[in-house]
């Protein structure tokens, strides 16, 4: 049985609590049980824990009825498995995933290795954004000469990007 919080590790801690006549059950892995402080049975309320589990719920908030256009995955599938359908799901469910990743990890942005070609793509993307901004400004200023030059540059960059 998988942990209800991270949905990745085997659950090793099984909790049952009767709250207002309703029985609640939570299965946790070792790491999550420690993180949630369930080691100390007096200092923890199962209700809070259940509220905190919101992984799948977070995703639903972000995309109430969304389906990944790449792989057809839905938030209901995530709720079931705790895994995503494809790399495109990170874009599809970006909004909901944001807070989930924040709760799970040390930071919210990757600072480590990327594939070599990624550096080129990122650099081209940055240059494209800068040129587009300049173009908008030139158009707003009715500076048509430099706007035309910028358009040429953008066209060339788009061509470079496509290679």
């Amino acid at each position, binding site marked *: 049985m998988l942990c209800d919080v991270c949905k990745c590790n085997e659950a090793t801690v099984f909790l049952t609590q009767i709250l207002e006549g309703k029985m609640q059950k939570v299965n946790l892995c070792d790491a999550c049980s420690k993180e949630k402080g369930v080691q100390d049975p007096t200092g923890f309320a199962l209700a809070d824990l259940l509220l905190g589990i919101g992984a799948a719920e977070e995703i639903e908030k972000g995309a109430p009825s969304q389906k990944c256009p790449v792989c057809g995955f839905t938030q209901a599938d995530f709720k079931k498995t*705790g*895994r995503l359908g*494809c790399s495109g799901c990170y874009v599809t469910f970006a909004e909901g995933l944001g807070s989930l990743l924040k709760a799970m990890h040390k930071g919210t942005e990757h600072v*480590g290795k990327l*594939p070599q070609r990624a550096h080129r793509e990122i650099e081209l993307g940055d240059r494209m954004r800068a040129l587009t901004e300049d173009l908008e400004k030139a158009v707003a200023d009715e500076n048509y000469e430099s706007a035309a030059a910028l358009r040429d540059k953008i066209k060339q960059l788009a061509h470079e990007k496509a290679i």
Partner: protein
Amino acid sequence: MKFENVMATGGEWLRGEGPHHQIVISSRVRLARNLRQRAFPGWAKKAERTQILELIKPRVEELTEMQDSFSELLQDLSALEKQVLVERHLISREHAAKSVGSAVIMNRRQTLSIMVNEEDHLRMQSIRSGLQLKSAFKLVDKVDSTLEGKLDFAYDARLGYLTACPTNVGTGMRASAMLHLPGLVLSEMINQVIQAVNKIGLAVRGLYGEGTEAMGNLFQISNQTTLGEKEDEIVSRLSKVIETIIEKEHDARQMLIQKKSNTLWDQIGRAYGVLTFAHAMTSKEALNLLSIIKLGVDLGAFPEDRRLPIDELFIDTQPAHLQKSSQQKLNAEERDHLRAQIIRERLRVFPKPDISKVARESENGSTPEPQNNE
């Protein structure tokens, strides 16, 4: 390379020659990678999974690191063979449950093993003896850099490598070490250490048991998060923490020798007695007793050249290894008998524990002084 060769040549990490190998059994670094715009293995239909496998497998096999490799489709391995690979930490339990559309490729030295279509399209793992997280990372990082030129890996400029489970996103890296900590367990300081390590965002868990129960006093320590920290930072942070744990384990052993020697010699003597004469033994009991004998070798109560046979028994007495070497399927009772028999045979040439050889450090430093009787 055939499966029989994998069985016959114990992996490099099993020989235990790396730095700090008395306490750190092995170091592992695993990277998770996926192909862009393709369904992850758990979501892909069989046809797509097979397609992805056919894209990846030849690229992995042609790596210079994979010359003369063992490469097998999971459906072509028997349940027992898969289990043997799990017991050697060459594939995961989850991967052993896979069949059509998954594969494993590993090098001859068994320092590099690549799972195709486990939870992610690629799980690349390097495993080394002793505390060698840095060199384990270096190897798997090099393989990753070669493969990224041939395969279109999924990544995001902000989130890094994209993985099936959000807990792995970013570096996709899990670095871990397997530690043998009988001193901290016997001196009842292990929980303190585990709590301290958990507080700084690293995970510790018993290797075979569940939760805090650790069979054979074996513990695995690993990074818990993968987003927001560089690979080499994670590796060096983990290495530093492990070095501290090694010191603590060393201190605990000295404390036991100096203050609880009766308990210590009793444990070693009993372990020796039971292992030498028992005719039935569960895997759990074997691991726990072998751990104490291993401690005895570390402390000098047994000669150093007895180390390898003990280390080998940790793996050879695991259920699948027992059955594979005896060429037949055995029930639990038969396994317990065979396990005890193998251990008795290997310990037949084992001398009795000699506690007068135990190196005792003086309170203030590391100069050994002769051991008085307890």
